[in-house]
């Protein structure tokens, strides 16, 4: 069964096409990497998948149900870490997480227990600072904690690893693996290809404007001598595949 089904998704801003006829199936229990260069429509696609944006055309199904911006019951089963993090700055981290936990239906005792555990695990122990006083990496950790606090069935992460230190990334990866082992689905966008290669089972690569150019299983890449095939060629890393599809650029600035 597919956790996410995107059929002919189109998103236009006026006359500008951000996503063009995108169709994608994400199997349940998979760790799915959604890759593409800057401005290729990744965040727009996640925006449509999470109800932030209205698709111009096409349909989205999450966990077998049609998803729209008003699908409150379905949202309760989803966790999202948006690109802009979506934090309420005047709050303290524990207040924010408690708010999110309560909104997603956790009882007060469970919420407090999970908040304390998450903050301790993510080393966000100083509760005297509001979110506006946190560093970028700490804010990302809080946003990640908010996405997982209710153990969602489908988790959307928009560039979760950037700005986080290696120990934090390692911990996050550990949790994400555990989620997929439990049959939950993770949909992640990232520019850190090495992490995606080690973490994800499947990958889709899009080009501007949100056009799917490749998708497939990449588990072979994590094995010695493993490779994936694209357009009759074999690639031994996600980076070489990505650069092959998106094009390597070189500009000689003689003053630099």
């Amino acid at each position, binding site marked *: 069964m597919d956790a996410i089904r995107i059929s002919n998704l189109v998103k236009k801003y006026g006359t500008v096409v951000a996503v063009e006829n995108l169709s994608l199936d994400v199997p349940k229990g998979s760790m799915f990497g959604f890759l593409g260069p800057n401005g290729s429509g990744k965040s727009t696609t996640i925006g449509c998948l*999470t*109800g*932030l*944006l*209205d698709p111009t055309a096409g349909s989205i199904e999450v966990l077998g149900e049609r998803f729209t*911006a*008003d699908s*409150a*019951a*379905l*949202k*309760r089963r989803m966790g*999202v870490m*948006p690109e*802009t*993090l*979506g*934090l*309420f*700055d*005047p*709050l303290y981290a*524990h*207040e924010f997480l*408690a*708010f*999110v936990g*309560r*909104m*997603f*239906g956790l009882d*007060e005792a469970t919420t*407090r227990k999970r*908040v*304390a555990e998450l*903050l301790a695990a993510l080393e966000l*122990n*100083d*509760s*005297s*600072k509001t979110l*506006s006083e946190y560093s970028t990496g700490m804010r990302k950790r809080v946003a990640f904690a908010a996405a997982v606090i209710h153990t969602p069935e489908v988790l959307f992460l928009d560039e979760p690893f950037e700005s986080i230190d290696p120990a934090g990334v390692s911990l996050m990866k550990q949790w994400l693996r555990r989620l997929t082992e439990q049959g939950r689905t993770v949909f992640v966008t990232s520019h850190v290809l090495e992490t995606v290669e080690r973490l994800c089972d499947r990958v889709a690569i899009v080009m501007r404007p949100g056009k799917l150019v490749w998708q497939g299983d990449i588990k072979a890449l994590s094995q010695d001598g493993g490779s994936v095939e694209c357009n009759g060629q074999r690639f031994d890393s996600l980076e070489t595949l990505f650069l092959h599809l998106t094009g390597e650029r070189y500009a000689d600035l003689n003053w630099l």
Partner: protein
Amino acid sequence: MNFERIGDLVRLRYKLMWARTRTRNGKIALFFIGYLLLVMIVALLAAGGIGAAILAVRSGKALLITRIVLTSLFAQALLATVLMGFGMSAIFSDVELRRYPIGASERQLVRHLVGIIDPFWLLTLALELGLLVGLYAMDAASLLLGFVAVLLLFVSNYLLARVIEAIIDRLTKRGSGSMILMIGVMLLSFSGAIIPPLIKKYPGIGPATVKVLAYTPPFGAASAMTQSGTSVALGFAVELSWVLGLAAALVWFERRPYERRVVATTVLNFESRYDRAAAMLGFDHAPLVGWWLRFYTRNSRFKALIFLSLPIAAFLTYNFAAGRRQSLGWFPAAIGTVPIVTFFATSRFMVNEFGYLGGGFRRCFLLPVEPSAVLRTGSYASMVLSACFIPPALIAWIAFAPVPFDPREVFVLLASALTGMFIVHGLGLWATLYGPRRGNYSQSLGNDLSLFGNIVLIGGIMFFMFSPLIWNVVFPAMLQPAHWWYWIVPPVLAIAFYRVSLAMASAALTGRREQLMAVVEGRA
């Protein structure tokens, strides 16, 4: 001083402002603001400035009238900046300017050059120059000396506003600061009622006060503009002393920003009293109402306005009841001013609910509730907080009302307050959707509302303030406690208006969310 870089940065500020007019809404706003400013400058230059000058010379009281006009302009500019935030809009912060290759004093100069070229301050300058032109035309002032005097007055006015802003900012960040602020505002508000009887009782106070006032910038400027000989020098000396003193105070405040002393702690204080209060009041999505309550009550602007609300209402009531020739009396004045306490403190968020959320606005659409719940709960939280001001306002009326006290007055005032609260909150929903503006949550002063937001807020204040005059013409019985039952109708209509607005705005929110997100996140 690197004046070239300073000039570049001042120009950058206006390039950024101009860039906003690239959108259709920006062009419309620019057209209206330009038109209004032009009309105001022409009208005020003629009536307020040159007109006053002609009157001053013809009546033979040039010094006295110049002092009165300049003091009024000076005080009005201060009131407008401190209360409504005009002319105190967010200029480049020191942190933003640190990325450019300029020094600390140059950064300070850039910030205040940008601040003083605000249209509001230019309007004040135009009025003062109007007076000078009038005096010059009537041969009662030197153009050059007068121009220097006006410039010094203008600079001291701006600097004093900034110093007051810095003091208020510090006060609102301290635990006891809000109380000190309230006492100060109360004293200021009631000075109008206290000073005239005092002067009547002790006639010696008047001349003594004038002697003291001679050392204020407006009096100094008036002397420099209209007098000759040593009086001119003394006038300039007074103005210059103020400019230097205020500049030194401002530099002192800006170099020593108040820092909240926080001890690092790992104790988690969930403060769920907000959620419990919301749940007790029977709201759906109590955590959402609880979050909005935290959002409001942690804001320094809200804290400052809480303590201004009641004194302002008291001041306006006094002004309308005792300070006007065609006064309708204390009770009708209170009918017009009591609604103001029901939206003044929360006004900034009421008309721009999402404008201070930044990236957090996205979270509202990721929560497992219908998107309109966020709009509704924000408005409910604002009303819960606003409603808290009604009992103290009514108690103040009961305590200070002119005798004989009629208990029916309390019902009328309550109904008037509720009418104001529901109507302005209803309009606030529309302003939130169709006039959003990206604001700075941590800024204590400054008017960062959109044109629509300002129309709702200032229009609301003006409408309710003058409503007794309208009632007096169209239906005078509304101003009499004996006809208290007539006052059942306005709140009922206001609640109906609020309900309809809430339903329609809720339905429109999902369709508007992409535009709102673009504005709130600074992409439009």
